C-alpha cells in the first residue's frame, strides 16, 4: 500500500513575466525514487527548489506528510551550496547543531578521507557533493532532493554517490526526487519518471510500465493522426514517432513496427525530439 509523503497543489512560480511552473499538481509516495527530466529551462530545478523550500511558490501549496518534519528533509543543490568558508569539521558541527543530529554517521565522509580542517571551498566538486550527501545521510532523511549534480562527479565518486543513495532508499525507505538530464548512470534508481516541458509535467509514469506504454515507430511516411504521437524526430529521410500511450489495439488498427526503447532513449527523445502539441494534452 502506498503512503503519500508529499502533495503539490496548483503550484505556480514566475520569474519576472515568465511563468516557470504553471499550475502543477502531483503527489509523491513514501520510498519512491523519482527522476525528473526535461529540457533546460523546463522548470525542473525550480520545482525541486520549491520542494526544498529554497523557492517559495507564488501560488499553490506543497503539503508534506506529518512524518516529514523539516529536519528530515535533505537537499543537494546544483550549485553545491554550503557555507564554503567553513572547514569540513565546522560544517559537520553546524549541520549537526541545526538538524539536532546526536550521533553523526561519519561513514561516507571517512571513505572520502577528508582533512577535517580543510575548508569546504577547497574540496573538489565530487568531494563536496559526497560530503554534502554525508551531512544529509546523518539526518536519516524521509525525503531527499538532488538537483542535476551527478554529471559533475567523476565516475569513481559517482558510483559511491549512487551506492549511498540506493542504500538510503533500501535502508530508510527514503523518498528520493532527482533532477537529471541523462539516465545512463542512474537507470537502476528510478521507480518513476517525470518529464517537464514549459513548467508542466508532460510525462508521469512508473519506470516499469513506461516501456510498455511508450513505443517508437520509424517510418518514411507520415503516420495517421489518430496514432497518439507525443514526439516526432526527423533524421534524414526517416521519421521517428514516439507513441504514447500505446496499447495493443493500436498495433491492430495501425499496423507499424512498434519498437521497445530503453529509458535513456525515451528521455533523450523527450528532450531532443520535436514537441508534438497533441502529446501535451
Amino acid at each position: 500500500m502506498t503512503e503519500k509523503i508529499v502533495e503539490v497543489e496548483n503550484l505556480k512560480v514566475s520569474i519576472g513575466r515568465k511563468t516557470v511552473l504553471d499550475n502543477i499538481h502531483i503527489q509523491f509516495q513514501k520510498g519512491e525514487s523519482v527522476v525528473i527530466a526535461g529540457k533546460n529551462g523546463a522548470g525542473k530545478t525550480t520545482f525541486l527548489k520549491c520542494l526544498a523550500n529554497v523557492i517559495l511558490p507564488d501560488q499553490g501549496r506543497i503539503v508534506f506528510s506529518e512524518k516529514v518534519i523539516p529536519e528530515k528533509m535533505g537537499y543537494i543543490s546544483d550549485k553545491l551550496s554550503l557555507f564554503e568558508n567553513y572547514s569540513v569539521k565546522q560544517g559537520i558541527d553546524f549541520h549537526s547543531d541545526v538538524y539536532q543530529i546526536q550521533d553523526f554517521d561519519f561513514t561516507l565522509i571517512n571513505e572520502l578521507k577528508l582533512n577535517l580542517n580543510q575548508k569546504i571551498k577547497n574540496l573538489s566538486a565530487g568531494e563536496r557533493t559526497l560530503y554534502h550527501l554525508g551531512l544529509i545521510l546523518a539526518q536519516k532523511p524521509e525525503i531527499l532532493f538532488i538537483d542535476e549534480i551527478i554529471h559533475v562527479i567523476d565516475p569513481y565518486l559517482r558510483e559511491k554517490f549512487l551506492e549511498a543513495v540506493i542504500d538510503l532508499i533500501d535502508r530508510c525507505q527514503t523518498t528520493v526526487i532527482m533532477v537529471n538530464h541523462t539516465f545512463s548512470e542512474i537507470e537502476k534508481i528510478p521507480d518513476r519518471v517525470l518529464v517537464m516541458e514549459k513548467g508542466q509535467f508532460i510525462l508521469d509514469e512508473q519506470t516499469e510500465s513506461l516501456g510498455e506504454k511508450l513505443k517508437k515507430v520509424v517510418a518514411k511516411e507520415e503516420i495517421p493522426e489518430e496514432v497518439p504521437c507525443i514526439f516526432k524526430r526527423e533524421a534524414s529521410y526517416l521519421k521517428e514517432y514516439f507513441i504514447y500511450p500505446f496499447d495493443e489495439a493500436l498495433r491492430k488498427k495501425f499496423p507499424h513496427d512498434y519498437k521497445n526503447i530503453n529509458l535513456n532513449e525515451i528521455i533523450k527523445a523527450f528532450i531532443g525530439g520535436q514537441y508534438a502539441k497533441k502529446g501535451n494534452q
Partner: protein
Amino acid sequence: MLKKEINDVLKQIAIFTAFALVIPAFLIITTIISNQSYFSVFFPLFQFSLPFWAFFMGASLFSVERGQRGMEYLLSLPYSRYEVVGLKILPRLAAVVLFYVVFLILYTSGGEDLVALPFFSFTFLYFSLYLISLSLSASSENFIILFVSSLFSLFIYLNLLLLVFWLAVRAKVDIPFDTLDLRDFLTLEWNPEITVLAYFSAFVLLLPLLVSFGLSIKKLDIRPAKVYNKRFFKLFAPIFLGCFILSFLFAHGSIITGYTYYYLTKDHKLIESTPYSGIKIYDGSKVHKIEGDFGSYWPSPFHEENEYVYDEISNKIVRINMSDYTLEVLYEVPPEKYIRWSIWTHEQTFVFLEYNRNAWDKDKKFVPDKKFVLLDKPSKNVTKISLDDKPLKNHYNLTIFGADGTDGQRFWLLTTWPYKEERHIFKLWEDGKVEHIGKTRKWPFYINGMLLTYSGDELIIHQEKEGNYVPIQRIPNPEGYRFGLSYYFRTNLDDIPINELYGTKRITLEDQRIGTSFAILDLENFKIEKIGESKGRMDYYYPEDLYFIETNPVEPEIRIYKYMDGQIRLFKTFEDFDYKKPENRSFWCRSGIVLRRGKKVKVYAYPDLKEIKFKKL
C-alpha cells in the same frame, strides 16, 4: 544557527575595532596628524565611522551566505524565513547597540568636545541608517548598490520628515517654507518643542520600509532580487501612504501652540503673537489683529509710554499704538546687520548696538562693523557712531548699561564681557569720543550720577569729579551681591524716585538646588541688608515691588513671594502648574504674569496679581 551568526558578527566587530583603533595611530605615527592626543584623533574618526558600521550591520544580513555561495543551503535549513531573519538580526542589532553604548561612554568621558556630529544628529542618523539598510538588505546582492540605495533612502527619508513637519506646522501656523531647515531635524533643535510625538512621527515614517521588509522577507527565496523588490514595492506603496498620514498626525500633535507668546502691557492689554500669524491685542472685550510679516516675534517691549508700546520685531524697531492698534516702523536694521542685545532707553532716544551678521568677510578678515545707533523717538532720525576704532577696537561683546549728560552733551556707558574676571567700562559721548573709565569684577550699574562697580569683596560707588569717576563709598560686600536692574528692565531709573537698589546672588540651597539670595542697598546711608533667600528665579520691578518667583521641580506649582514690610512673604500660589510640561508656559511681564496650561491662558496683573479676564482669549 545563532552561534554561527554570533561568530560572524564577532569577526566583523574585531575587524571594525581593529580599523577604528589602528587608523588614528597610523595618522599620528606618520605625522599626517601631529601634536594631538590619540583620543582627540580617535574619537571623531570613530564617531564618523559608526554610521558606516550601522549601515554594514543592516545591509550585511545575507552577505556572508551570498559571499560563500551558501544562500540555497541557508534557505533549505529547517527554519522559517522569520526564524532565519530573526536569528540574523539579533546579534547584529546587539552589535549596533553595543557600539552606540561604547560611543556614549566615550562621549561622556571627554568625547563631548570632539564630536564630528552633534549628539542628537548622530544618534538619529546612526539608528535611521541601520533600520533603512536593514530594510533594504534583501533588495540587492550588490553591496555598492545597497550602500547607494541606503544613503539615497536616508536622504529621501530626512526630506520627507522635513515635509511632514512643514505640512504639520503649516496646518497650525502660516510659515514660509524657507524658514525650515533640514538641519533642524538633524540637531532636533527646532522651535516647536520636540516631544515624544515628534519621535513617533519620525519613526512612523520609517515603518513603510520596515513593514515592507518584514512582510516581503516572509517569501524571500533565491530568485533574482527584482522578484523580491516587486513584492516589496507592492507592499510599500499603500503602507507608505498610511504611514505618511499617521506621521503627519503625530507631527501635528507634537507642535505645541505654546509657541504663541504673550505680553501684558501697563494698561492691562494683552499682546499675543503666534509666529507667522500676525499679532493679536486683547483689550478685555475685543480682539484686534495687526496683520503683517512679523516672523517668530516674541513680544518683549523695551519701552512703554502713553498709548505706545515699543518693541523690536524681525530686526525692525516698531511702535504699536494701543489706541488704534496700528503698527509703525521707526527704524529697519539693514539686512546684513542685526541688533546686538537689547535697546536702551534714555529720555527721547533709543540706543542700541548694530553688528554685521557675518563678522568674517570673504578674505576671512574679522570685520564686525560695530555701530552705536541713536534713534530719536519723536523725529525718527538715526545717528550711527562707529565703535571699530580704539579704544573699543578689540572689544567685541559690548553692552549698554547707563546714560547721562553733562554740559548739554549726552553720553552712554558701555561694559565689556568679563576677561580674567574683569569687565572694562567705557563712556561714549554723543560726538563719538570714547573714554576708558575703569574696571569692575561684576556687572556695573549707573544711577543718579553714581557709578557702581565691584572689586573682590567691595561694592564701590563713584561720582564724577572734573571728568573722572572717583570713589565716594566703599561698601563691604563679602557675599558678592550684584545690584541693579532685572533682565526685562533696560532703562535709566532717573525718573523714578529710587531710595534703594535690589541685589542678588546665586546660592546652592540645602537640597542642592540653585537659589537666589537677596539684599537691599540703601542709597542714603549706603548699607547692604540681606533680606532672604528663594528657590528658583526672581523678578523685581522698581520702585518698590520686589517679587520672588519660586518653581519647585517636585511639586507642580509656582509660588510668588513679595518683599513687604521688611520681610519676604508668600504672596500667591499658582497650583497645578507643572512648568516642566512643554504645553505649559509662563510669561513674566513688567505688569503681570501670563500662565498657559495647555490651551487655557490666564493673566494676572501686578501689584496684587489678581486675574484679569479677556474675552475670546
